[in-house]
């Protein structure tokens, strides 16, 4: 009998009926410990297995979770400070980053995807922010970390973390999406859940110094400067060319993420955040900014992160992550627990500014309704949308369509492939379709 067959709200016999008197007496005398809890759970499962009634809002019997006052209501709780750094509940251990088997044979050059199916709002918990490394991650001693600015500046400069954290700071919400997010779906459906199809996407509040502040402090030569190069301090020393218009606008040299220091997997103690641009440009473990008059043609802007077009030409410096959205609940690999009301929810984002509107279809794109945008709508940040849906048990195809403040409407697969074919790897922002069958199972599909 598998635990997951059980659903809350099912009719179950009270576990006491299945427990012997000695065991109950032990619990009464000595309380519950892990062993006894586990035994109770198993007894409960056995009880549940005997009655496989569907989920019901009209319970035929009283709910033992109400009638038998639960143990947590009758015991002394844990002391303050038990966990000096708090952790999620032990019941949340299914909510973790995951790798896609076979995607990369080396775990230092791989991806761990954010479980978008299980996250709420517009902030990704720092420990769930997706990971993409090119040569492993490092944990750098902040007292030994340095940032250098050189190239077309009056004074090449060195900053310590002491220096950087004294400077005027900004805290801003921005998404980071890998340019290769949804890459495996260009040709056809390949992945079961939204974690793998869209999970190279996370949103955070980033705190740090505007890059423009540092470039001005170093005396940038604005007459000659056309590009900057950012470079990491890790083994790969990942380097990327960034437009001077971006660099002087909203790029952040960030040390903070969601109220604490950036996590090592996100570039502790210092990273670049290039809002709206594919994640590879937001160089982690940032050690150097060079100002120049020509682009650098680095490895990950030539052999990687260049988009192959149908005519065999490679597009270089494709950077902007255009408007995109995805429904996270319900989504692929899920099963709806019953007919009736659902709050369909998902995320929308655009590298060109704010999300203006999100529409949702439940008939594969024949007709659309406008969703509610939740909370704050910020430029180049995740935006949460919600919409009502009553599932009557018939098949449906759910889609969402983002529209940003430039008026750009998220494309269909047909429209995207007309221009880019199916082999360009990066920047797949097509409308995602989830098919719901009569059983309530949700499948990743593409429609034409």
């Amino acid at each position, binding site marked *: 009998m598998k635990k997951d067959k059980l659903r809350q709200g099912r009719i179950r016999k009270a576990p006491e009926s299945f427990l012997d008197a000695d065991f109950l007496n032990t619990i009464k005398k000595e309380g519950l410990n892990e062993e006894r809890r586990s035994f109770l759970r198993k007894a409960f499962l056995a009880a549940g297995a005997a009655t496989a009634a569907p989920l019901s809002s009209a319970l035929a019997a009283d709910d033992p979770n109400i009638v038998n006052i639960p143990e947590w209501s009758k015991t002394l709780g844990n002391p303050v400070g038990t966990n000096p750094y708090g952790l999620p509940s032990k019941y949340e251990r299914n909510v973790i980053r995951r790798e896609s*088997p076979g995607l990369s044979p080396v775990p230092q050059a791989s991806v761990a995807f954010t479980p978008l199916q299980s996250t709420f709002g517009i902030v990704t918990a720092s420990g769930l922010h997706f990971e993409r490394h090119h040569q492993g991650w490092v944990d750098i001693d902040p007292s030994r970390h340095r940032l250098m600015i050189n190239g077309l500046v009056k004074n090449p400069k060195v900053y310590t973390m002491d220096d950087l954290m004294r400077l005027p700071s900004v805290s801003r919400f921005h998404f980071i999406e890998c340019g290769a997010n949804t890459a495996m779906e260009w040709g056809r459906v390949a992945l079961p859940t939204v974690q793998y199809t869209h999970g190279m996407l996370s949103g955070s509040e980033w705190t740090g110094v505007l890059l423009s502040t540092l470039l001005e402090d170093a005396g940038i030569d604005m007459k000659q400067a056309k590009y900057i190069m950012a470079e990491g301090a890790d083994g790969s020393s990942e*380097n990327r060319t960034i437009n001077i218009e971006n660099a002087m606008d909203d790029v952040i040299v960030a040390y903070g993420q969601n109220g604490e220091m950036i996590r090592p997997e996100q570039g502790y103690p210092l990273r670049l955040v290039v809002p709206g641009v594919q994640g590879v440009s937001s160089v982690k473990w940032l050690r150097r900014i060079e100002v120049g008059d020509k682009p650098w*043609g680095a490895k990950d802007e030539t*052999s990687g992160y260049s988009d192959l077009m149908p005519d065999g030409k490679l597009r270089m410096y494709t950077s902007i992550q255009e408007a995109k959205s995805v429904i996270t609940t319900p989504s692929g690999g899920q099963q709806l627990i019953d007919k009736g009301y659902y709050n369909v929810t998902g995320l929308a984002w655009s590298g060109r500014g704010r999300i203006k509107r999100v529409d949702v279809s439940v008939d594969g794109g024949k007709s659309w309704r406008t969703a509610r945008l939740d909370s704050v709508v910020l430029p180049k940040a995740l935006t949460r949308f919600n919409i009502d849906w009553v599932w009557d048990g018939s098949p449906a195809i759910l889609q969402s369509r983002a529209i940003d403040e430039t008026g750009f409407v998220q494309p269909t697969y047909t429209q995207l492939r007309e221009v880019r074919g199916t082999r360009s790897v990066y920047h797949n922002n097509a409308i995602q379709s989830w*098919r719901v069958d009569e059983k309530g199972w949700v499948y990743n599909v593409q429609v034409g």
Partner: protein
Amino acid sequence: MNAKILLPLTSSLLVVAACSPQQSAAPQAAHQEAHTEAAAMPAKVSEYTHFSGIGRNATTTEVAAWNIDVRPDFQGLPEGSGSAEDGEEIWIDKCASCHGDFGDANHVFFPLIGNTTTQDIETGQVAALQDPGKVRTTIMKVPYISTLWDFVYRAMPWNAPKTLTPDETYALVAYMLNLAEVIEYEEPLSHENIAQYQERMPNRNGITFDHGLWSVSGTPDTHNTDCMTDCTAAVEVTSELPEFAYDAHGDLVPQFRQYGPVRGWDLGLGKDSEGEAEAMDIPMDILTSNGCLSCHAMDRAIIGPAFDDVAKKYSASDAEYLTNKIYEGGSGVWGSMPMPPQPGLAEDDAKAITAWLTK
């Protein structure tokens, strides 16, 4: 009573007061004002453009130590030289285990060399990029010789980046270019002649900057409309996950919460689920947090061998050997795919894995 004792008491009372619901309206009003101001998001965050006492000028030696980038116009290229002949020995020693003797291996990374022709060297555009049947190698895509030099020097070898000298780097780049028929085996590649070999790079003309994704104000490729009703005549499902791939990402049940509006598909794979894991004493937390499951599955070989097979092969007396093997990695026991060393694994975790596998 003196002030030293009073102070902590006073401050803790303040904390309690700050948490109580009886706050005056004033702080809230101030908060809202700040919020409105923030929404305007001024371009300048400070009056200052120079910050006294912060940062210092970099020394020439410091800049030289880090300023390693080489651009396509060869700005930043150090002097030196090396031929393919010089590079061969270094390649076999430091590069071949991942990239293969001829740069064409694909067992760890995408192949570096292959699928370019002498015709491509003439035209400067790789014809095979138009052929979906051809594996895309690095040399097919990369337009600049500088990119090869820059990357090898900054990031290679894989487990010891930034340890190659400029001469070794020239030799390794020459070795790769010789495999692609760009340079002769005995011809040294140097800072003096590198520009002439740039003119033989097979895909030097195969790139384009003509697109709208470079700038935030660029023109998009697609032009969907916001149609609301009768948008398509018929909806046809053109692609769907094949049934045999439903479990390619493992059991989906434990990939979702066990409560809430949905559950994961129950494909009947429950033996991997947590109840079973507990019953079999599988150290799931350790395997998950250390990334073991990205290469190993319980019951089938993926990149590495199945844990079931490892467990069959070893008994309790092999525990120490197996622990060392986990730390040091290696290849040969289960095939040629090397297991990378795991120096970051905690000792208790390594022992728990070994104890479980050798039980």
